[in-house]
């Protein structure tokens, strides 16, 4: 089901026998508007519509659909393909435990909560899971993860006096290995992608932890800045997957498409609430529908 604005765009085509050079751009203009309102980055929108236009005017256009239905289908297909085509969406399990998962992202996106949710999920799958509270900056961040970790039955490694985030990450990995954990999830401090010192620290944490999976945690309501942010995090530490949080609200979530387009990496999990059980695996077609409204 497509939003009112898109219905309008497509209705304009429905009087026509087919899509052609004369009517396609008018309809695509409305699609552009809808995607921008959904917070998809303008460059990603431009590329997407270019591909849709080519397909709409191309030789292998699906038959038997009215022009408006056809364009709706092509847009939805293109979105779904972008989201589904970005690679396997499950976690990359290490051949030898522990699998180390590193969470990173801007301030307040839901990393600490997601760390605990992920731990709960893995423990539910029968995997012994530990957490490392490597945010040594935010007031009571360690306490927050400790409380959440305890509530899901996960061991939480916290820094010793004088121990920095990279040293904690290295030690947590060693101890998780020795204790036979299947997974170690490392929570880090929120940071600006343009903060050179903190991005250097993140690289040091990554080097110390040697994660099998680096997840960028994004807030579903993020705007156009999701593109440059995701680009910088990806260039700094190499993102393996995305987590999109706060999808239990009415934010359209276009930021996910921007981040996905620029990293080439898939959304692996969705945060759908504040409780530790509120984590879902990702379904491309559902998010595509949401972005389209």
């Amino acid at each position, binding site marked *: 089901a497509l939003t009112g604005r898109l219905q309008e765009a497509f209705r304009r085509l429905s009087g026509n026998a087919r899509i052609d050079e004369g009517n396609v751009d008018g309809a695509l203009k409305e699609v552009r508007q809808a995607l921008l309102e959904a917070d998809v980055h303008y460059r990603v929108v431009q590329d997407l519509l270019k591909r849709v236009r080519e397909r709409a005017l191309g030789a292998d256009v699906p038959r038997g659909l009215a022009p408006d239905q056809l364009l709706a289908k092509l847009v939805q297909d293109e979105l779904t393909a972008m989201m589904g085509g970005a690679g396997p969406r499950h976690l990359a399990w290490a051949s030898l435990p522990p699998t180390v998962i590193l969470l990173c992202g*801007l301030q307040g996106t*839901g990393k600490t909560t997601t760390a605990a949710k992920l731990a709960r999920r893995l423990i539910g799958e029968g995997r012994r899971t530990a957490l490392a509270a490597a945010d040594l900056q935010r007031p009571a961040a360690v306490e927050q993860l400790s409380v959440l970790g305890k509530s899901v039955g996960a061991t939480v490694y916290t820094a010793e006096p004088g121990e920095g985030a990279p040293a904690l990450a290295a030690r947590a990995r060693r101890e998780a290995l020795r204790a036979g954990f299947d997974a170690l999830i490392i929570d880090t401090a929120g940071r600006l992608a343009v903060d050179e010192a903190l991005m250097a620290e993140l690289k040091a944490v990554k080097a110390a932890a040697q994660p099998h999976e680096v997840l960028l945690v994004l807030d579903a309501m993020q705007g156009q800045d999701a593109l440059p942010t995701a680009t910088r995090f990806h260039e700094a530490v190499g993102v393996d997957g995305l987590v999109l949080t706060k999808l239990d609200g009415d934010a359209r979530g276009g930021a996910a498409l921007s981040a996905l387009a620029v990293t080439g990496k898939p959304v692996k999990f969705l945060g759908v609430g504040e409780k530790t059980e509120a984590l879902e695996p990702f379904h491309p077609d559902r998010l595509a529908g949401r972005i389209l409204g």
Partner: protein
Amino acid sequence: AASGPGRGPEAERSLEEAFLGADLGPELAARLASAYVRGGARGRAEAADALLDCLPPAGRGPSGFLAAAPLARPEVTLLLGVNGSGKTTTAGKLAAAWTSRGQRVLLGAGDTFRAAAADQLGLWAARAGAELLRQSEGADPAAVAFDAVRRGVAAGFDRVLLDTAGRLQTKVNLMEELKKVHRVVGKALPGAPHRVLLVLDGTAGQNMASQARLFAAAVPLDGLVVTKLDGTARAGAVLKVSGDTGVPVALVGLGEGAGDLADFDPPAFIEALLP
């Protein structure tokens, strides 16, 4: 003139993209780009004026919020907004700003839900030289707010600053809880809360509109706080939100430290939105 972005569709398109990138939204971005190009040499100034006009009339000048004298004694300020927007940190910074002006500030730990929320605010209270009122986790947030205001009155504080739990604006039960907090604060002290501030995450896009609309529908808002403007997000969506709701922007958050809070300065904010 040889200066300026030039005319024609190329120039207009590239301007529109700059405005889109600043989260002004497709409608405003298109309108501004066209005005800018048509304005020729005066294009940039005209765009700046158009942006200023988006703000409500009462919100087009420097907000003067931090130095404003308290409206009552104690003056009660309520902070609300979606999860992770920066409410608790803003409470800490605001407390620091007021204590540095010689005022006695009581912080109320109104987030009784999230793990370590009261601990986080407590650390900020210590940092700011303010006092903290908290109850046990799971306590009724309205009860905490009530007690904080009563304590503020009884102990002669200049300001009571009430933090609340993050809530998505579409969660009806949480918005009802917020309305109850607001009502109960008024029972603790008639006229309170004197200032109700909606804290908006500066990295947010068009969802700011829904946030402002639904929070304003729940409780009367006196001001907006836009956080995380020290990053690359430009928070352009705030302009239309402020204009549509008539709620002026009071403060901007510029970092994670106690001093990283400033009055809203419209010309400076708008300058950052222009290419």
